[in-house]
């Protein structure tokens, strides 16, 4: 039975759409952002987790930062008790935002954290502060000595602070898309 007009149009339409899509991720691209060097301790009612955000800033993002565009990362840190033959038990979670913006008037980089702002004199210091984290995660439940505990961390680009006219232009599009996979690291228990 011959195909109907609608079916043929649909096939042609979606074929052309697929052909018009940009090449996939199979091609070589920029370094993949990720979380590394996860370490920390857990004791009392909190876990102190340290980690480093790698490859989060592309050269274009650095240039954007220098141009006064605010860049913000949202970090999610989860702490869990690890069991070998059972499901892990979540103990606590923190969502942490850190952003940086260049103040052209005073020529400083203003780093904004949940616990306050920090002014940095150059871009290297700002990038260093934007990629090294030490996050305190309140945990529930007792911490047993010698038992395995693990921190899971993920980071993603939260927003890019464009000026108002540019916001309306790029309202439907995202300049950069940075998001890491979940990274895991063991925590030292007392």
């Amino acid at each position: 039975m011959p195909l109907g007009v609608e079916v043929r149009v649909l096939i042609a339409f979606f074929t052309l759409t697929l052909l018009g899509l940009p090449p996939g991720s199979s091609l070589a691209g920029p370094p993949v952002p990720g979380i590394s060097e996860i370490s920390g301790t857990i004791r009392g009612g909190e876990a102190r987790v340290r980690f480093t955000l790698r490859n989060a800033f592309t050269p274009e993002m650095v240039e954007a930062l220098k141009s006064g565009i605010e860049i913000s990362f949202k970090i999610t840190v989860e702490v869990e008790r690890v069991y070998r033959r059972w499901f892990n038990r979540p103990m606590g979670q923190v969502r942490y935002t850190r952003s940086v913006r260049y103040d052209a008037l005073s020529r400083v980089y203003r780093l904004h954290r949940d616990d306050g702002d920090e002014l940095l004199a150059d871009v290297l210091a700002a990038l260093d502060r934007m990629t090294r984290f030490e996050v305190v995660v309140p945990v529930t439940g007792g911490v047993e000595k010698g038992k395995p505990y693990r921190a899971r961390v993920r980071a993603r680009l939260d927003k890019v602070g464009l000026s108002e006219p540019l916001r309306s232009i790029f309202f439907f599009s995202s300049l950069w898309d940075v998001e890491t996979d979940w990274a895991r690291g063991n925590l030292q228990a007392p």
Partner: protein
Amino acid sequence: MGAEHAKLRRERWAIGVVAVLVAALTFFEAHLAAVGGAVTFSSNIVIFALINLNVIFVVLLIFLVTRNVFKILLDRRRNLLGAKLRSRLVLIFICFSLIPTMLLFIAATNITTTSIKSWIGGRVGQALTGAIDIARERLEEEARALSPAAESAAAGLLGTVDPASFPRVLESSRSLAPAGTALLFFEKDAEVARDGEVPPAVRAEVLTRIKAVNGDGDAKGTLIGDEFAAAWRRTPGGVIVVAVRSLPPAEAARIREITKAYDEYHQVRLLDDPIRASYVGILILITLLIVFAASWMGIYLARQITVPVQLLAEGTEEVARGNLDVSLDYRSRDEFGTLVASFNRMTADLKAMKGNLEETNASLTRTYDELRRRTAFIETILDSISTGVIVIDRHGRIAMINKVAERLLRIHTDGAVGRMYREVLREEHYEAIRSLYREAGEAAGGQVERQVELVVGETRIAFRVSLTALRDDAGEYMGLVAAFDDLSQTMRLQRVLAWREVARRIAHDIRNPLTPIQLSTERMQRKYAAVHAEDPVFAECTEAILSEVNTLKHLVDEFTRFARMPVLRVEEGDLPVEIRTVVETYRTSHPGIHWEFRQEGPPRLWFDPVQIRRAVTNLLDNAAAALGERGSVTVTCTHDESAGRARIDVADDGPGIPLGDRGRLFEPYFSRREGGTGLGLAIVSAIANDHGGTVRMRDNTPRGTVFEMEFPAHPPAMEKTGSMAPVIDDGGREI
């Protein structure tokens, strides 16, 4: 057809609604975007829902238009009616919209690119950099102006960290500070003393800055922000003294604007390509929308034209195929609507006319059938009567002729109808009718009847010709009817009847005196024979008288038998057996003649065997007399089942009968044979007539004579009564 039309209408509505929704949603989303980042989370969800909806609608619009264009192309490939016109119109619309739109697109793209380039590559950047430098220098100068106050306060605190001394130090340093300056003392990132009012935002910013400089180890410096300027000194005791002055609101707003413009400039410079791509994308989207809208408009207008045209073409095709129940479902107020309405009215009128025509045709058919039935009835009547009839129209063409006329006049009726009667009839017959026609014209009532003798074949036959001129109600001449009655049989019968009467009277008048003559003569012989014994005259005379009387008696007996033909005694019998018996008798009595009898299967018939044997005997007697000692006679007995007639043929190869004798052959007392009474064939004719049949003579091939006697196999009168009805003469007497 209606469903397809409704589907197209739904598609048009869908395209229109989707286009309107896309435009409305785009406007709404642009408006929301312009509001800025102050929208709430729920508003963001709505915006993204609207964006997705808009995308879906755009895709749907593209799909619908693409589908229609694709369908048009397919219709064109299939050579569907109206597809070429539709595709041409759509192409024209696309071209007319694409050319200006593309020009506009190129121009807008160039203008956008040029504008952006001129903005980011021109002196705007230098001006903004200069402006922000000026603002910075202005703030730093303001901060430097605050340095004496900060220096003085730091000097006042030199060597002491007693908080109790802080007010005194602030009081003493105030005179050195410009108006509106606030003095703040920080120790370990915390404010420990203050003199003057500072906006909370400025105070928080100063605190942040102090925290930042705390780790640097510097002893003094300045701080600037977009709404303040400050100078600070660190005392040996670790107290940081800050003299801060908030800028007037207007000045702070100007500096913020400069800073903002500077940031925007650098952002635009950085995002030059994405911005241009975004503008180009928007222009492409608008271009596509215009093109699709034009395409849709082209499709819509093409359908406005081609749909009614296609409907009309299909309707016309249906009408051509004879379907007048076509009613096109198309309503519009334009000319096409009027055209379709006229078409529907036309088909309705045609249907009504066709109905009337069919009704008239049925009526005509009924009339024609009735006429045919009547004509067939008339033809049957004409064919069943013994009168030949020829109907001639006003132009002299034969309108009708029956088979009797064909037989009587020896013409073929198959090709006669419609031809001029002059061409069909022989010259003599034509002249006879023409002569009678002239008489009829002069006669009252236009009718004339004459007895005419015409030569048919080789025989002159007497006809009673009746000619009647036909006239319609208005008296207009329509033609004439010629009726031919063969009088030869009638005349022959009349002659037979006359001869029978003559024979009866002769027999009656002659027989009566013959007996006294015979008796008297015999008496004279007995009485006077002895007296005149010596005289031979007496004896010769009386013997002669007695001989002639006997001859006369024999003649009278013949006349008596002829005059008193017995009444037929019809019974069912085997005709061939009866005839074979007679033939066998002659085979014995005339051994020199070859007698042959043929039988072609006649069934048992109704006839008078005595009379038939007598008739056959007479015919065989004549044949034997004609042949003399040698020759051959063939007797054939046949039966024409379709005509329902039996036939007996007696054929000899004798000398034949002269032409001049043939007309009187069956008349009584006509004989060329010496000693013949001339009653043999008359009796045959009488018997044939009594059986409702006829007897004819024709030449045999190659020589001789054939007598054909035929009569109905089942005469109606016989079937009922078993005997023939008696023959009645003109006087009502049975003969």
